[in-house]
């Protein structure tokens, strides 16, 4: 019995480390990849694929200057944000249908961990007393209140299909459905989730991660007063978050090709599949970015409400299918 427990524990620890390693290493690469893909679509050459790592190492070598108005909260925020995001990464299934710690929590914890990170970011942005940071913070919170219900509802619809709020259970359920998966409910929910995911990542048409003009920045605007290592931590955390949402979307859109067991070659194919899926989702996101222009701040509401409505329709259809009512 003890032996079994030990093996279980060992396996868990191993999975945790693989997951953390994967997410930490992959996230700068995926961000650069998106930049590269976008550049290629727009006819530019784009940055080298290793640019993310170069950036990070640069940040960690720079001097750290902070505003003299700030309190210790400003200094601990990057670490709180980073640990919350990293904890979230243990909840998201990547190359294998189980997550390292299935007992940790589900979609609700995921959303609230992002919320925790956002709370500290928004608070830290108010610390230096700069007008630009404050504006970004306020806008970020406004976007968050629009995104959160959409994200939750679309995840809820998917969770209701699988009857569990734990992400591994949902993904597992999706992966065993085969061709029967593509019901109207599923398609609509995934579309709503895609919209919410793009908004949560802070990309066009909701926010532009590449802008460098203070008045238009939302997510990046909050880091204005950060520099050096602290900025590096903040940016790395937002890359990790981006990767998490991308993996979530990838696993919901293509719930196939997971490693079934822990043997090495199978794990390897799982990883390959995972990478391919994420790249495809990146391509979708980048395509959307290239085709659509950024919308005005207060028009964001309309898009997100539309997405909310899509989720509700998905919900209604799923229920009518269950009970044979409504006739949809």
């Amino acid at each position: 019995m003890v032996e079994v427990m030990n093996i279980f524990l060992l396996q868990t620890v191993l999975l945790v480390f693989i997951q953390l390693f994967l997410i930490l290493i992959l996230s700068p690469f995926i961000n650069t990849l998106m930049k590269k893909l976008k550049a290629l679509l727009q006819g530019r050459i784009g940055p080298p694929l290793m640019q993310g790592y170069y950036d990070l190492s640069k940040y960690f070598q720079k001097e750290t200057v902070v505003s003299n108005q700030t309190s210790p909260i400003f200094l601990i925020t990057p670490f709180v944000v980073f640990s919350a995001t990293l904890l979230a990464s243990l909840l998201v299934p990547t190359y294998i249908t189980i997550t390292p710690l299935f007992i940790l929590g589900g979609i609700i914890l995921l959303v609230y961990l992002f919320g925790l990170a956002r709370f500290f970011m928004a608070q830290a942005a108010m610390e230096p007393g700069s007008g630009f940071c404050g504006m970004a913070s306020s806008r970020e919170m406004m976007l968050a209140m629009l995104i959160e219900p959409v994200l939750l509802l679309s995840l809820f619809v998917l969770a209701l299909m699988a009857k569990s709020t734990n992400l591994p259970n949902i993904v597992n359920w999706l992966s065993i459905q085969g061709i029967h998966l593509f019901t109207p409910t599923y398609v609509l929910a995934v579309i709503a989730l895609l919209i919410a995911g793009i908004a949560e990542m802070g990309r066009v048409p909701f926010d532009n991660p590449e802008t460098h003009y203070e008045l238009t920045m939302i997510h990046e605007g909050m880091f204005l007063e950060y520099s050096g290592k602290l900025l590096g931590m903040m940016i790395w955390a937002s890359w990790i978050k981006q990767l998490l949402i991308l993996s979530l979307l990838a696993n919901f859109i293509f719930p196939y090709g997971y490693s079934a067991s822990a043997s090495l070659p199978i794990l390897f194919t799982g990883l390959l599949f995972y990478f391919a899926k994420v790249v495809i989702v990146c391509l979708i996101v980048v395509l959307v970015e290239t085709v659509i222009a950024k919308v005005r701040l207060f028009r964001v509401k309309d898009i997100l409400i539309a997405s909310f409505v899509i989720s509700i329709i998905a919900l209604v259809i799923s229920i009518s299918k269950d009970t044979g009512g409504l006739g949809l």
Partner: protein
Amino acid sequence: MNEAILLQFSFLLFIFGAISALTLNFFSKKLSIVCSSVIGIIGSSLSLISSILILLHKSKLVFSLYFIKPIGPLELIVDPLAAFFILLISMLSIPVLIYSIGYLQAEYMEKNVGVLGVLYHLFILSMILVVCAANAFLFLFLWELMTLISFVFVISDTKSIESQKAGFIYLLMTHIGLAFLLFAFLIFAKYSGSFSFSSFQSVSHGLPNNLKSILFIFMLIGFGTKAGLIPLHIWLPEAHPAAPSHISALMSGVMIKTAVYGLLRFVFDFLSPFPYWWGLTLAVFAIITAMLGIIYASLENDLKRMLAFSSIENMGIILLPLGIGMIFFAFDQKELASLCIIASLFHSLNHSLFKSLLFMCAGSVISVTHTRNMEKLGGLIKLMPQTSMFFLVGALAISAFPPFNGFLSEWLIYQILFSSFQIHSQAVKIFAPVCGALLGFTGAICAATFVKAFSSIFSAMPRSHQPVHAHEVSLSMRLGMGIPAVFCLFVGIAPFAIMPLLQSASEAVIHTNIKSNSFFANNLLINLGANHFAALSPGLIFALLVFFFTMFYFLCKMVGNKMPIRKDETWSCGVTPKAEFEHTPTGYSQPFGVIFRELYTPESFYYKYIYLPVVNGLINISHRVKPIQSGNLQLYLAYIFITLILCLVWLRL
């Protein structure tokens, strides 16, 4: 029966505390404050221990006071449900009393602290007795006592016209609620022939269904007024800020929870079985309350008013699982229903912890800066580091972020909303997930509201002269804030300490125990058939967060360039930064105002479309009736005289 003795002793101590507050006040104000508070703390501790014992033993205490023929036995019955609310009251009254030692000395030395002390003790005693009362007559009497004492606190700032007005609205609204309760009780009494709750319980099956629905609506209005259910909430944002801050903490933390007790007791005990639309009605009102409450809070710049609006929101969140629980109960899903009640009680507990913490922090800030306007504050984190940390804990807990207690109860609420797929009603199946999404919506607004509040009070530079000379508050005040802050974290990490108490309380409402394999307290594991599985391990979350935090913090210190951090002024386009450049609270909430344009209905909306029509109608009726009223005393007596004679004649016929 140890519990009984402890509880009786605590009652005596509260009375003794009240007397000592009054008498010692003649010698020295300070002595009066300290002595009465210490006695109160001992009394609260006794009732706390007793309530925990009752909850653990699942026992039921009965104190018979007197038997009066037409009213029925005047009894106090303490069952686990009542004990849970006693736990809530006494658990909060301890830190609030500790806080009040310093707070009263800082703020109220020129006032009559003796009377404040007496009222305080009676307030706590009346709240404890309200939840024990097992007789409608006694219940209403104590309910009224509780209201009147809090009314005195609301108008205690005798110079301010605003607080007088607030007091008037408070008194008016609570009495409208009381009238509905009274009416409901009288209908009950007519059918049962007695005012005792046990007779109500036995008569519940004999009531006609339509009458039961009417009774439920009366109860909803009566208790909803106390709970601040929108649109009956208009008194709450006026009255709670007007009271002294430690009383606001109690009013928001505990007093409005008695409405939850009332609904649990009356709906589940006396009106069951009931149709599911009752629960749906309650849930719809609750989610509307939660949403609108927090939207108003997000746009508010008065610190205490903002907290009061957030109390409205949280009452919505507490009543939502109650409504859903009623739906489950109506569909005979007893296990899920009791889970709902656990969620509701859990959030009540959590809300009392963090809301009283926040109100006490607000009191500290106001006592050193003398302003409630967030526009005029700022920069306090350097002057009051500990208070700001406590406020941060409260803000994180109320925004329901993971390592704190608020998250656990909201997680439970999400889970029960999610479980609605087990119910055969399409309306509920659509309503519940949408409710979940809206709960997320309120959560996000709540986070925004508290980022705004925290940052505008504590961060950056002071925006007026008032916060410049602020200083850290006295030890007792910090201790008073510290205890709930620690509990917020403790409950958030180790809910297994609380879960048995909650389960015992919910078993008293719905007589079923949750199967051990479907709900584990230690890890919050829910496994409710139909492949429904959800898990959460708060301890692990906390441990991992702390682990990651320390690991990366020290890694960062070691790797690369060393971290002697250079401090320099904030970049503001080359000009020396000033407080005027900051983003103000009004500016912060401006985008919210824009997106909630349709939802944001100012207070006057309720007056204009709900209250004024009623008032005008009443005035019209009284104008019609006026001719009968000559103003002549003798004529009125003649009316009575004639009526009496007619009665006699009628008797004879």
